[in-house]
């Protein structure tokens, strides 16, 4: 299924929104940590893993998912959260550790939870797979419609959890899609150096599930491939591995200089925000003016969200003691 013009404009808008957000976060991150760099300092502390370059993997896949469907994300969640439609204000506030954030400051950047959007993330590699497959299992058992999707990187396929969960997805014919964002780098180790085969999508054969590889970081191609996987999941045909070639334009986390990436590879990296815009304009889906309007609109929404975060209060230190248990009191 190909995307309509309206869907393509929406995907462009999503990747712009995600990029604007990541750009502002990057700016803020470094602004107040210098000169004696301290991860603990500043408005956005800790380690941030931005989604620069990988936005199409979320923008192209999310349009097929409804609020009945469940998503688990990983340590690089911003594009997933934004393309899923999470509230930018609460997202920004959570990154800043504010009381108004999605988790009132408990979770931070790698642990964004939105119940309304059936969205959660985990910072441990590949560990979003089990829970997503588990929701798929629960939905199947209760004969409910929702499917489940997990997002991870190509290096995560070398985790034991990948093998165990995909095998069970096959055994139980789960309505589950494992989306792999292949940016070629697991922190500083290339795919070739860490993975015995070229494409993780081919591992689908080991599990009796469907596998597909999208060779380009293009929203339209990703959209089409995802529609095939979603159709299978919704019609009882079971699980898929959808692997997408994408680009990690920045380091693994902010501050990583990417010194280990060969220069030719850096030069060859494509920037989807520029590429997709050019594509849509050349095909007459968007005019320059419309594109500018989209950028300006997203910029102002992101600015407002960042300001919301900055203006929001921090939690009370004693809030740390709340919500350790649901039913037990100490």
């Amino acid at each position, binding site marked *: 299924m190909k995307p309509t013009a309206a869907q393509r404009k929406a995907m462009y808008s999503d990747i712009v929104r995600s990029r604007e957000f990541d750009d502002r976060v990057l700016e803020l991150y*470094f602004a107040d940590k*210098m*000169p*004696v*760099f301290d991860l603990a300092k500043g408005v956005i502390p800790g380690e941030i893993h931005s989604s620069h370059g990988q936005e199409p993997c979320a923008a192209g896949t999310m349009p097929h998912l409804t609020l009945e469907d469940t998503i688990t994300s990983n340590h690089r969640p911003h594009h997933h959260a934004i393309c899923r439609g999470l509230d930018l204000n609460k997202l920004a506030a959570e990154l800043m550790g504010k009381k108004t954030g999605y988790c009132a400051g408990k979770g931070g950047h790698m642990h964004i939870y939105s119940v309304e959007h059936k969205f959660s993330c985990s910072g441990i590699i590949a560990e979003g797979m089990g829970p997503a497959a588990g929701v798929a299992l629960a939905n199947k058992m209760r004969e409910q419609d929702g499917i489940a999707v997990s997002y991870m990187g190509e290096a995560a396929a070398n985790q034991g959890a990948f093998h165990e969960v995909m095998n069970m997805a096959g055994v139980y014919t789960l309505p589950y899609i494992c989306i792999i964002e292949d940016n070629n780098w697991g922190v500083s180790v290339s795919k070739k150096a860490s993975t015995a085969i070229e494409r993780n999508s081919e591992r689908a054969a080991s599990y009796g599930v469907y596998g597909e590889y999208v060779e380009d970081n293009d929203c339209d191609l990703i959209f089409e491939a995802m529609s095939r996987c979603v159709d299978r999941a919704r019609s009882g045909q079971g699980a898929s591995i959808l692997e997408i070639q994408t680009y990690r334009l920045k380091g693994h986390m*902010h*501050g*990583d*200089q990417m010194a280990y990436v060969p220069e030719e590879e850096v030069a060859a990296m494509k920037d989807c925000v520029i590429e997709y815009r050019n594509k849509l304009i050349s095909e007459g889906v968007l005019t320059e003016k419309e594109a500018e309007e989209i950028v300006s609109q997203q910029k102002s929404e992101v600015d407002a969200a960042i300001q919301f975060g900055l203006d929001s209060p921090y939690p009370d230190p004693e809030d740390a003691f709340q919500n350790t248990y649901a039913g037990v009191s100490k």
Partner: protein
Amino acid sequence: MVEVVIPNDMWEEDLEGVIVTWIYKTGATVSEGDVLCEVMVEKSQSDLLAPATGILTIIEDAEAVVKRGQVIGRIE
């Protein structure tokens, strides 16, 4: 006398770095090639090596903000 200088190619771009820590004190004898101090730019840390053998005098202390080409000590 040889100056201890932040090399011009220690990092790219015209950023400021900071001396994280000195391994030797003023008055110490150092040998050419010894790691004298650790310098950090953004999140990258590099070692600064002694350009000569002799007695070290520190000019910029730990936590000092430094630029490429800046003199931070001397060896006599």
